């Protein structure tokens, strides 16, 4: 587990070092594809909701953190 957490830490640091990569608007054919969106898909909203209820661990994916008891 400690090893995995080290990798997460390392990934965050690597991400911190990557920046300023400039891709022009006309070069974004692939990046603008709907499937490349950096968020959960809209159709996944119901799954995020039941996973929030069925798992003690939740969040960091745009899911609900309040506004419903989640008691069923």
């Amino acid at each position: 587990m400690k090893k995995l957490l080290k990798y997460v830490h390392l990934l965050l640091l690597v991400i911190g070092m990557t920046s300023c990569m400039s891709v022009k608007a006309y070069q974004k054919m692939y990046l603008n594809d709907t499937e490349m969106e950096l968020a959960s898909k809209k159709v996944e909203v119901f799954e995020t909701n039941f996973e929030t209820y069925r798992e003690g661990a939740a969040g960091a994916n745009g899911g609900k953190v309040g506004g419903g008891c989640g008691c069923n």
Partner: protein
Amino acid sequence: MKSHHRQILITALLLSITRLAYAQESTASNKKQGYQMKPNTTEIEANFLSSYYQQDGNNGAVTGGIGTEQLTDIANIFIVNVPLDSINSIGFYGGADYYSSASTDNIDTYSSSASSSDVRAFATLSFNRKNLKAGETYGIRAGFSVEYDYTSVSTGLSYTKEWNEGNSELNITGQAFFDNWLIIYPYELRGDVSLPTSSRRSFNGQVNFSQVINKRLQMGISAEFVKMSGLLSTPFHRVYFNDLTAPDIERLPENRLKIPVGVRLNYYPIDNLILRTYYRYYWDDFGIVGHTFEIETPIKLASALTAGPFYRYHNQSGAKYFASYETHLSSELFYSSDYDLSTFDSHKYGLTIRYSPLYGLLRSNKIISGQRTFLMKYIETRVGIYRRSTGLNAYFISLNLGLSLK
């Protein structure tokens, strides 16, 4: 919090602060490059979403960790975004879900109880304003959620900054939820048990950073800080003890701190295949540590048709207040037999299919004053199975219709 957990959180926060500082400097750079963020178009976009979900298991929290967890839920959501002009827009997110639950029917074992079926209605209204030259968007939102024994109102603010010609984006969102229970105790315990409060408050701070890495690869990091207080247990959950015949209701602390950090990496390696990956680390002060990994591989079968098999794995250590049926001791301060808080693995797998013809599925010419055209742009469906190592099994089918008026 363990030291390596703290290190990850500190790194994520430092990264966010660095990004924010860089974003401030980059406004001048954007101006130099002549870059300006996209203004709103006149197109009104909407989505109609619908879902059917069914689960069953044998660890019902209402009956103290034994008994049925059967639940059926039918939900519908409508989302619409209306641009008011090139910089202002309003959004609506609302819907309702109907559920029937054999588990909550056991609140009252003598007759069918109020919670055996219920409807939850919810809506959020938002307003966003862009500063095109600075690459900034400011948002404000307010919402509510109502069901038979639970009401919630929420409010929130958001700030988004894009720079580096739209290749970098930082979003900061703060939300507050003010909830209230209509307390329903298990039938046989009414008059014998009580709770100090019926309210719950949640404050949620979220930082999202996204970065284009090259023409085919981009990534996003999301860190959240959630502070909850008030009634965090469920009043009709029973707990049976090892040293006592009579049960009690679930008792949990009145404060909870949750910290999830997620990383998303999307890659378009070849022309008809995309890799969508996601990892989340989760920590909370109830003692739950979770790891979640997701992968989806959308495959372009034809110009309008995409099929994406997906798989999700989740693992969590249980809350320190959890124990199974007749395991808790009555001398403990906090206790729960809700298996959602237990140690388990879960697997979810299924398929997404999206049909999105270039000129839409359905088109109605100039329906409003001869000015606008209604378009059904695409249809997307998702079916899947969810299996938890505690024995809970579920399946679902969801539908998304993409609509527009332009």
